[in-house]
């Protein structure tokens, strides 16, 4: 984005704005009433027993929270941009942790031994005998495996789909457009069921993992077909003409001239698809595949400690997508340098 060269006054440093902001924040804190939370306890030397403090207590708690909130904003506003970003990230992360903490979770449960594993581990010596260990060694591995294979297949499908959609061949265009229409039109969960239960009706017995991979790659191949098509179409006509004028054949033009140029255009949206697919791989848990989501549900359900395991799964997915985002940024930078 273009950053203007004229610096405007920070709106946070205008007294009028600060006043209105403080009043608004005060009103919000007052409306939500934090008196009976940890904040009220903390202020009990001033307001006495939070439960009996009434209007005065509620107002005091809101007032203190407002001072903290607005003061924090004001302090951050003086920092350099990178520091600002870092501080805000850390604070938001701690808020998220506080949100999770407020569930009153049994964190130790995540690290406890699990009996699914201890019975299974006799036969398969794969898993570590703790829930988190099982999530990582079995669940994370399966999720990455399924996603990686699906992404590879989806990319191949997308290249051929895009070429077919751009071709003058009626069959190719019809098949490709029918395919993208169908697989973009059905919910992924439905596709997973249809493949897993539908193919055996035709006489093809298909395991859970291959059908999960098939559903994911077909679905994301359809989305990526459109991305690749747009990427190919965005290359100026002059590139085709120059190649044709040199006597290049279609395949050579595509392979050596058009695709290399469309990669920088294709990478950002494709990265988004990869990230989305990684998370959507959780849907194959309905087939009983031992990936992260399935294990989270199974391990948590036994002792009704659902949230502990779901949060663990959430953290693993989040971490994975952060890694993918970093890889995507690196690829984007590489292609920016080259052209």
């Amino acid at each position, binding site marked *: 984005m273009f950053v203007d060269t004229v610096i405007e006054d920070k709106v946070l440093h205008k007294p009028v704005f600060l006043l209105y902001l403080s009043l608004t924040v005060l009103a919000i804190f007052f409306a939500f009433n934090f008196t009976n939370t940890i904040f009220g306890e903390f202020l009990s030397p001033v307001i006495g027993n939070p439960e009996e403090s009434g209007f005065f207590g509620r107002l005091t708690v809101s007032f203190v929270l407002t001072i903290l909130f607005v003061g924090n904003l004001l302090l951050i506003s003086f920092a350099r941009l990178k520091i600002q970003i870092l501080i805000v990230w850390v604070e938001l992360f701690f808020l998220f942790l506080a949100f999770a903490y407020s569930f009153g979770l049994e964190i130790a449960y995540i690290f406890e031994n699990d009996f699914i594993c201890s019975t299974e581990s006799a036969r398969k010596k794969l898993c570590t005998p703790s829930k988190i260990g099982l999530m990582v060694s079995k669940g994370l591995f399966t999720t990455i495996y399924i996603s990686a294979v699906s992404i590879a297949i989806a990319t191949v499908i997308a290249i051929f789909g895009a070429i077919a959609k751009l071709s003058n061949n009626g069959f190719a265009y019809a098949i490709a457009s029918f395919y993208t229409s169908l697989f973009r039109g059905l919910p992924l969960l439905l596709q997973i069921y249809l493949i897993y239960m539908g193919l055996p009706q035709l006489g093809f017995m298909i395991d859970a993992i291959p059908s999960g991979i098939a559903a994911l790659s077909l679905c994301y191949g359809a989305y990526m077909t459109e991305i690749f098509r747009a990427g190919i179409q965005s290359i100026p006509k002059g590139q085709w003409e120059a190649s*044709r004028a*040199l*006597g290049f054949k279609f395949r050579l033009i595509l392979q050596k001239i058009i695709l290399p*140029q469309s990669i920088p255009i294709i990478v950002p949206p494709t990265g988004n698809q990869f990230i989305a697919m990684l998370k959507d791989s959780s849907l194959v848990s309905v087939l009983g595949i031992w990936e992260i989501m399935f294990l989270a549900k199974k391990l948590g359900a036994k002792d009704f400690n659902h949230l502990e395991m779901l949060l663990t799964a959430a953290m693993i997915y989040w971490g994975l997508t952060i890694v993918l985002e970093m890889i995507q940024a690196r690829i984007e930078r590489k292609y920016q340098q*080259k052209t």
Partner: protein
Amino acid sequence: MGDSITNENSVISLKGVNKWYGNFQALKDINLEINSKEKIVICGPSGSGKSTLIRCLNRLEAHQEGQIHVTGIELHNRMKDIDTVRQDIGMVFQSFNLFPHLTALENCMAGPNWVKGVDEKEAKERAMALLKQVKIPEQADKYPEQLSGGQQQRVAIARSLCMQPKVMLFDEPTSALDPEMVSEVLDTMVELAKSGMTMICVTHEMGFAKQVADRIIFMDEGEIVEQNTPEEFFNNPQNDRTKAFLNQILS
């Protein structure tokens, strides 16, 4: 029998060529013989069909009626060997159309290496020699966007010449250039003309036309209105439309 004598020397011949875009007739009954080593300049107001005509010569555009023969082969919509014909016809575009992901040298090597089966070492030598000929060997390892417009167009000329074409087509090669870069491209073209290349140029550079052209063709509204030697064309134009055009462009 006179026909067969001219045909022997003729590289490009058009007979009764008509072309339409929908209802709009872009080319009207074009008849033209271009001999080997001839330098032709095509001029005319914008929309007169000159670019369309030159793009029909390597079939980047299709004509609907009449015959176009290039190096003895007829161009039509069911031909099998268009790619071989195109390898013999170099084309330089108004917008350069260099391959932005390849260096200047790689742009020049691409044709011989990928389609003519010339091995990499020889393709590189040939490319370097031609970059020297267009006077930018020192830019060989730069990418097109690092080059000025004039340099890009010269690389584009070298890229076409690497295919060792029999004919070179120029489609307004200097129209997209800053004024101070026009001459470096024109100089390259003049030198190319001296080397005996058959050239067909769509251009508004009348100085270049005077200096190089054997024949100037004036087009308007899809037809060839007048064709003549530069001397006759500039000093003694026959048609009113030619006179009007020359008045505008030379004043």
